[in-house]
């Protein structure tokens, strides 16, 4: 299991806008083993989606650019590949599913044809073979009477169906890595449960590694083996999921966990993290979370902590664990 599939080192993706530079991803490092599910957790502006787009090398340029770091995928540095070599990896060895099943399918093509496209491009299948494979993928994702639905247009399907189609499309070429960007956020609870279960099943069948981008800690608890928590373009904590939920170390993670209303418990008042996410263009000099942190001290305002290992499996970026806040 400790066979490393993806290694992101000190990744920096910045956006160069008229009024300044936005360090959307600023020195992010993590790794992912084969067959593992890693959750990347964060709020809007945390850089979680930009991280995934950087791995796919799909950062819109201009204004965005990867300005530093390494992305090692199965021994290759993705950032050194030519655009043509990258195209062979995209959709074939790494594929992605998005949040909006409505807009990520092309409305003018039949879903079967859209799934076939990747197969024709990457595996050189004939149109007819590709369609057969597409139908098989639809069956795999639990779509009833797939030989009929393959000839449907996206608008003839419901949101949950479309997300299944997206998954079928992403997994058609049996990728080693699947990046799922908020795959269930737009879906209803009962449909979310279906899709999460489907992803678990397929992952075990196909042994695909998954990077799950989400803001929903409950989804993390359900799905992931390990989690990386991001805040303002940086990783603040990395841990196996069980340890993370049992004993979060970073005050931000603690706050997030404490502020979710729970069905099982009665709470008069919810814990709340004060303040708002700062503007990435004007980040504080010290720790980005310090202005909102209940445990912050003078050191936190003055200097940025580094992501430091605290055990063989856990890393935290906080002065609390690095010799005090004052």
């Amino acid at each position, binding site marked *: 299991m400790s066979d490393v599939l993806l290694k992101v080192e000190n990744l920096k993706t910045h956006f160069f806008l008229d009024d300044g530079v936005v360090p959307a991803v600023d020195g992010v490092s993590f790794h992912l083993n084969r067959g593992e599910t890693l959750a990347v957790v964060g*709020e809007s502006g945390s850089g979680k989606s930009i991280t995934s787009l950087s791995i796919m090398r799909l950062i819109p340029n201009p204004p965005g650019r990867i300005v530093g770091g390494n992305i090692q995928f199965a021994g290759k540095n993705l950032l050194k590949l030519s655009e043509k070599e990258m195209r062979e990896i995209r959709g074939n060895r790494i594929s992605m599913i998005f949040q909006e099943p409505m807009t990520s399918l092309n409305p003018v093509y039949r879903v079967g044809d859209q799934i076939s496209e990747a197969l024709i491009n990457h595996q050189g299948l004939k149109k007819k073979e590709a369609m057969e494979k597409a139908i098989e993928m639809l069956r795999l994702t639990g779509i009833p009477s797939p030989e009929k639905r393959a000839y449907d247009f996206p608008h003839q399907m419901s949101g949950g169906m479309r997300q299944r189609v997206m998954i079928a499309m992403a997994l058609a070429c049996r990728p080693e890595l699947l990046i799922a960007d908020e795959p269930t956020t737009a879906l209803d*609870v*009962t449909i979310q449960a279906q899709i999460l*279960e489907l992803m678990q099943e397929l992952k075990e069948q196909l042994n695909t590694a998954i990077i799950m981008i989400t803001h929903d800690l409950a989804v993390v608890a359900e799905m992931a083996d390990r989690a990386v928590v991001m805040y303002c373009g940086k990783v603040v904590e990395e841990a196996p999921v069980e340890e993370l939920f049992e004993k979060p170390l970073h005050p931000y993670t603690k*706050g997030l966990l404490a*502020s979710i209303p729970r069905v099982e418990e009665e709470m008069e008042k919810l814990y*709340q993290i004060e303040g708002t996410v700062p503007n990435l263009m004007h980040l504080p000099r010290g720790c980005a979370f310090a202005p909102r942190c209940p445990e912050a001290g003078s050191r936190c305002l003055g200097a940025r902590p580094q992501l430091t290992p605290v055990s063989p499996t856990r890393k935290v970026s906080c002065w609390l664990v690095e010799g005090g806040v004052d």
Partner: protein
Amino acid sequence: MQPLLEVKNLTKYFPVKKGLFGRAGSVVKAVDGVNFKIYPGETMGLVGESGCGKSTTGRVILRLLEPTAGEIYFKGKNILNLPNEEMRRLRQKMQIIFQDPYASLNPRMTVGQIVGEPLKVFGLASGAELEKRVQKLLEYVGLAGYHARRYPHEFSGGQRQRVGIARALALNPELIICDEPVSALDVSIQSQVLNLLKDLQREFNFAYLFIAHGLNVVKHMSDRVGVMYLGQMVELADAKELYSTPLHPYTQALLSAVPVPDPKVKKKRIILKGDVPSPVNPPSGCRFHTRCFKCLDICSRQQPEFKEVKPNHWVACHAVQ
């Protein structure tokens, strides 16, 4: 106690236009015969999946949409018979907080103008008095007085939602309809807004109709909770009761589907088959029977009655005695 709001057999159909000259073809049965009451100072939650009609219900109550049928009593008065001008005056007592803090504030107005507008519309304050009231309202929701001069896009999502709340408070309403007030916000901001809503209720003692799809959020906020499916209310009970002993199979499935933020809890899930059917052509009998795991023969033929099976616990299901 007299209910603050009573909704009887509330129905809203949307015509689906078809053909060259826009002849009305079929209808979307968005809300179909919903009944409930809200008492002064309480919070009534409304949950359900998209397309269940919960948001439409909220808007019909405010007459932002005109209902197709049914009655809405506010303090014993049927508001559907009110002439326009009287309805406009009544709006002071019923306010709404919207889901999308980006779309619900006019981008061309300053925050001060937005919050002060209701007062101006009803001629309740002007000049320095208006300014003072606006400052006060902004302080109630945790913003500062100087924010009044700024435009909405200068604020974060959570702060905008606070502005929307301040606007709703301006007229001292007795009922506030919260339509998914936190689902567009970041996790770390959600709890701030939920706490604020609760604090304000404690201080001003108005009632909430709290509409949301997040079951945990609704549980946290509500005294009583109604569950909707395809335009109909399937279960209604006290929050604690509903979450601990759900009776309707749909409520049971819904509750079991909520992911728990604890990796050690492995819940037994009821995974429902298929998708929510189209509200244009809802299933016969009980609307849930196509996905129900307790479906009986009678379910596809006869619509179950919405009845009180335990004190204050209402449910519409043939399988529940």
